[in-house]
């Protein structure tokens, strides 16, 4: 329940900045059913505020957005292109830049696909079954959100470092986890762990188990039920989780910085390279890489909006 209300309140916060949004969309999925019949009334309620106050609130929101979101984005792109388009593309095709892009894509692919599998299984178990220790499992899933990324990285140093728990054994077998791709992947998986599960759990809890029960009573097997009933019901929520998971996986700095070893052209991801280039006074190159990450953020935002629409539509259809 706390999960659900958390998610719900964060959704409302996000949407509070878009004053024109239909109230139907602005209300969190869990409350929609209750709100819907009164939509017209509550719309009028909101507009009872006097015009100047409404204007002031909107202006404040816009000002806030401009200063904290739009301006930094503009600076990133302006700095990236400050020496022209050719300098921009030259910076991106440097071997170190290509290697960082490549590594970031690889890490994102690994961590997103593993977290996808894990997230679906965890959400499915939590929302469709009752078992002892369920609350504990939910808390565990949330853990990476409450742990500082640096600590998340250090945990793996303590486990897999040469002086660490498995260090001697790994060294003896010549297996490199830390300061190599596996370590970076592990740290990224750890920090992006909750995204898919958290996107799915409230959705699946809300959907309940009736449809699955119906499928099984009609003779479907467990797997058939999952692929034909559960999965289609959660697909938009799933994509939403994957999207956020991917954004964080590509953008993670702290945890990855601890386990990367910063080997040039080998274990630097894009966020790490941004910092390195900046510290080497290569501002154009640094902001060129940063602009790729910013574009990722913009794309994420657009896809997220589309997915949220779909999610709401799907919801309404299934409600009816």
């Amino acid at each position, binding site marked *: 329940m706390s999960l659900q209300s958390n998610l719900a309140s964060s959704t409302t916060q996000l949407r509070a900045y878009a004053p024109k949004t239909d109230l139907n969309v602005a209300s969190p999925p869990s409350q929609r059913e209750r709100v819907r019949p009164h939509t017209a009334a509550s719309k009028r309620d909101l507009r009872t505020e006097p015009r100047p106050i409404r204007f002031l609130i909107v202006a404040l929101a816009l000002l806030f957005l401009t200063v904290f979101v739009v301006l930094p984005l503009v600076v990133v792109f302006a700095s990236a292109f400050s020496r022209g388009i050719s300098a921009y593309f030259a910076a991106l095709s440097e071997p170190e830049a*290509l290697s960082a892009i490549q590594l970031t894509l690889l890490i994102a692919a690994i961590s997103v696909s593993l977290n996808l599998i894990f997230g679906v299984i965890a959400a499915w178990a939590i929302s469709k079954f009752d078992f002892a220790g369920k609350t504990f499992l939910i808390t565990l899933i949330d853990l990476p959100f409450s742990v500082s990324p640096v600590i998340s990285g250090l945990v793996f140093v303590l486990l*897999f470092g*040469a002086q*660490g728990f498995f260090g001697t054994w790994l*060294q003896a077998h*010549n297996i490199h986890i830390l300061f190599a791709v596996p370590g970076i992947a592990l740290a990224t998986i750890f920090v992006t762990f909750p995204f898919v599960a958290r996107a799915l759990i409230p959705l699946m809890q809300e959907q309940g188990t009736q449809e699955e029960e119906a499928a099984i009573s009609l003779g479907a097997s467990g797997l058939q039920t999952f692929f034909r009933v559960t999965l289609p019901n959660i697909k938009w929520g799933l994509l939403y989780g994957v999207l956020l998971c991917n954004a964080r996986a590509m953008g993670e700095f702290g945890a990855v910085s601890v386990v990367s070893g910063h*080997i040039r*052209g080998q274990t630097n991801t894009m966020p790490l390279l941004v910092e390195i280039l900046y*510290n*080497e006074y290569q501002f154009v190159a640094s902001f060129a890489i940063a602009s790729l990450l910013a574009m990722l953020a913009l794309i994420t935002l657009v896809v997220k909006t589309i997915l949220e629409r779909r999610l709401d539509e799907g919801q309404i259809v299934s409600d009816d």
Partner: protein
Amino acid sequence: MVRRILPLVAGLLWASSALAADYSLLNVSYDPTRELYVDFNKAFAAAYQKETGKTVEIKQSHGGSGSQARAVIDGLQADVVTLALAYDVDAVAAKGLIAPDWQKRLPQNAAPYTSTIVFLVRKGNPKGIKDWDDLIKPGVAVITPNPKTSGGARWNYLAAWGYAQKKFGSADKAKKFVADLYQNVPVLDTGARGSTVTFVERGVGDVLLAWENEAFLAQREFGKDKFEIVSPPLSILAEPPLAVVDAIADKKGTKAVAEAYLKYWYTREGQEIAARNSYRPRDPEIAKEYEKSFAKVELFTIDDVFGGWTKAQKEHFAEGGMFDQIYKN
């Protein structure tokens, strides 16, 4: 759509299939040597290929000297370490990765290039900073990194201490002087490059205590019309040492090429690369050639004033040491 993505994908695939060299070395180094090793690695690879016919590729990793040593201890597969101070190499050696006598294996304390600590001030030197005494004046903001994490910062600290000890002749007065100095420090960054960025780009502070090479680099990057280098009459001889990480190089079979790599520093070409990057060369001939590039500074060594790194580390930078006492007050 596919056509637009194709060139990018091709570029990414190409990057992964870069030609493998006969040998691959990993050099784990400290912060300000990034530009130095770009030059040096290129020159060494060419020289090595010419001499042996084998190709060698050198990968770099840079960061604060202390944390880099820690990474090697934790398993970063460094063939060579080129750190800011002997203590950090000792820390790796203490774990059995480097032979204990490493500092005797190469000439001149295994430090083929040296540097010193100078002051970088803003154009026109508005606060009139000429010597160490000027740093403790009220209203002078001094930028230096945290000696707990940064090798350069430890050299800064020891240079100030050494100056005060020589001037006032007592450890108590030196402690008072250094305490006053750190009263004037508004922010402690974790590494030398971080401090440079704070001073140069963010415009914080009146004077940056910096490696001489770092000060020259900042001046080259941002122009002499923005910053001036002030060399105090007395400073410390900073000796950043090199060592082959025996345990790792032996395992990877790269020991011979790693040793050749470090020895290349002692050739004419190596010394010239150091000098061109504003590190003071050891070779007297090259030093003479580049005499004009470096200010005449009377230099004392850490052995002279502090009795070596192990002792200095224990007395000044260990938990509860001088620095902790000074910085808490």
